[in-house]
Each structure stands twice: as structure tokens, then as C-alpha cells.
């Protein structure tokens, strides 16, 4: 058997090129799956690529790779992950353990006789009515509409659903970066310049892309939200 890493087209039935989306689209399965990438036949053929013999050197290269100690994972050090998001000019981290969902922004229905700064109203997230709080008001961050330069092409505001157990609360953010994993030794102290109400909730600072990101403390944040709703 040859160890050619690229199989010749004879070994693989390229149905997507003949009757699929790259061909004449006459495949009856297209009706159901719309695109070849959704089709189980396509997946089956893709899996066949892994049925090939090992390329030369493959086994030895991987053997050397896994024999080396993993320097990226020092033993015994805790790894934590946070959801990094932006409010105004401020980048903050929400512990991933209390992050439930990121949703598109949607209309917020204000509550009658409720003129609190912190509670914005009610939002509908997949049929569940959640209280939407204003994190800028809670943390005392100026939610000044930041004028962004040309460095960023597009930013999308998002709705973040947080909470523990069955209790969920939503808040709006100007942008969500995604999850970021960090190690315990990266944590730094919160500088004194952080506003007082924010300092009570920001537990640690972690470096991220040359910035210091304030990581919110899960327990204190949820307690603060609870107090603001009550």
C-alpha cells in the first residue's frame, strides 16, 4: 500500500462534485440536507480520509511530541476561565461557571413603577422571561458610548445571561470577546483607581491582550444583582 498523503480521486467517490452542490445539484438528498456539508454521506466520505495508512514519519514525530513534558500545563496550577466582554471602555471578565448564554440583543420591556437605574426591565430569552440589569449602573462604570477608531471593523452588542442554578439574570454588554483561560499566577491585585462599587465586585485583574481585565467575583456579583432586584 502506498503512503501517499493525498488520495487519488479514484479512491474517493466525490459525489458532491458530481450530483451535489459543486456539481449539477441533482442529488435527491439535497432536498433534505440543503448542502452537502450537512449530509451523512459526505461525513462518511470525510471519515474515509482517516482510513489512510500513516504518512512516513508520522508515528515517530508524534512519539517524540508526546514523550516531551507538557510545558504549557505546569502541574498543580489551577486554570480558570472567564468570559471577556466590554462595557464602554472597560473590559471585564465573568467567571465561566456562572455564564449561561450569550444572546443577540433584543427589546427590553420596562417594568412599570420601577425607575431604578440598575434594573432595565424584562427580556425574553428563548421563551424565558429574565430580568435585565444594567451592569454599568451596578458597577458604576461610565457607559459612555465609545467612539471606536478604524482599528475595529465591526463590534456587536450582546446580551449575556448569567446566574446559578435556576436563577438567571441578563445584562447587556457592548461586545463579547469570548472565553479566556488563565492560570492562577497571572492574577493580580485590583488597583486602587477602580471605582468603589466596582472594586467590591472585581476580584482580580488578569492580563489579556496587553490590557488588564477586571475579573468579577461570581458570588459578589450575583449578590449585588440580587440586592438590586429586591
Amino acid at each position: 500500500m502506498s503512503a501517499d498523503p493525498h488520495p487519488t480521486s479514484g479512491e474517493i467517490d466525490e459525489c458532491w462534485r458530481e450530483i451535489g452542490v459543486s456539481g449539477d445539484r441533482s442529488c435527491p438528498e439535497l432536498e433534505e440536507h440543503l448542502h452537502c456539508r450537512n449530509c451523512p454521506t459526505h461525513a462518511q466520505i470525510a471519515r474515509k480520509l482517516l482510513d489512510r495508512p500513516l504518512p512516513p514519519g508520522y508515528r515517530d514525530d508524534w512519539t517524540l511530541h508526546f514523550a516531551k513534558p507538557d510545558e504549557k500545563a505546569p502541574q498543580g496550577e489551577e486554570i480558570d476561565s472567564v468570559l471577556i466582554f466590554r462595557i464602554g471602555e472597560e473590559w471585564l471578565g465573568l467567571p465561566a461557571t456562572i455564564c449561561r448564554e450569550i444572546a443577540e440583543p433584543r427589546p427590553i420591556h420596562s417594568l412599570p413603577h420601577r425607575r431604578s437605574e440598575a434594573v432595565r426591565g424584562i427580556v425574553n430569552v428563548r421563551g424565558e422571561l429574565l430580568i435585565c440589569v444594567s451592569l454599568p449602573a451596578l458597577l458604576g462604570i461610565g457607559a459612555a458610548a465609545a467612539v471606536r477608531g478604524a482599528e475595529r471593523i465591526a463590534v456587536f452588542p450582546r446580551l449575556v445571561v448569567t446566574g446559578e442554578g435556576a436563577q438567571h439574570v441578563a445584562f447587556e454588554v457592548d461586545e463579547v470577546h469570548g472565553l479566556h483561560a488563565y492560570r492562577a499566577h497571572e492574577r493580580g491585585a485590583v488597583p486602587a483607581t477602580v471605582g468603589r462599587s466596582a472594586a467590591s465586585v472585581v476580584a482580580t485583574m488578569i492580563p489579556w491582550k496587553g490590557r488588564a481585565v477586571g475579573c468579577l467575583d461570581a458570588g459578589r456579583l450575583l449578590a449585588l444583582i440580587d440586592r438590586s432586584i429586591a
Partner: protein
Amino acid sequence: MLFLMFQLGRDRYVLETGQVEAVLPLLATKQLPGAPRGVTGAISYRGRPVPVVDLALLALGRPAEPRLSTRIILLRYPSGPGQDDLLGLLVEQAVETVERDPADFTASGVEAGMPPYLGPVASDERGLIQWVRGEALLTPEIRDILFRQQAAEL
């Protein structure tokens, strides 16, 4: 519950992913002369020696074929009270995971005389898949031979 699927011959089997430490590509193994049948050798995983059992050899009587889809599943294996060891399982077609409810698995109907590692079965559109119990994969005798040396070093 998430399961890692592999094949022995034509049949599909699953392992519970909670037991799986990592899935490695096919590595070169160091032969262990005189090792019991089914044990192909040992690999170095991050500097730690890990014995590798060829499931195809154990169950089908022929070694696993060297292909890209043949992989080594590193299983956390209870080697004694309160301690885990790593065990490598050389399996074919380890390319898929499936999400199944453990309650979907029912007794296969043939329990007597079956190898102790084979568990209940569940069906899907391609046929039956069988749950492999990681903790029952090795007989106590093989386990003693494999891990005795490590225990002696401690």
C-alpha cells in the same frame, strides 16, 4: 453523557468519556518482551510510561491496522484503592463521539460467557453500539503484571 466511539472489526463500541484522559495518535510503542497477550508495549506520555493494550488483538486476535484512524485512547484506570493509573487502548476507527442517555443502553441478552468488559447495548440508525467498561478491561492477573513494577518503584 458523551461517549467515545471506536470499532472492533465491523462492530461499534463506546467508552464513557469521563474515563478518558486523552486521545493520542498512533505512537510507536516500546515492546515489552514477555508481556501478556494483548499488551503491545509501552509509550511515554509526557515522560510517564503507559502500558498499551491492543483491543483488536485482545478481542479479534489480530493486531490493529496502522491507519490514521487507529488511535490510542488514554484511559484513567483504577489500579488500587484511591489511585489511578493510565492505560492506553489501541483501537481502530476512533473518530467519533456520540451523545447518548445512559438509560438507552440495555442488556444485550447474552451475558453469560461474555468477556467482562462488554457492557449493555444501545441502538441507533446504523445498528447496535456496545458500551465497554473501562474498569473491567484488564483481568486482575494482567493488571498485577502491568502495574506491579510501578508499585515496586514507589
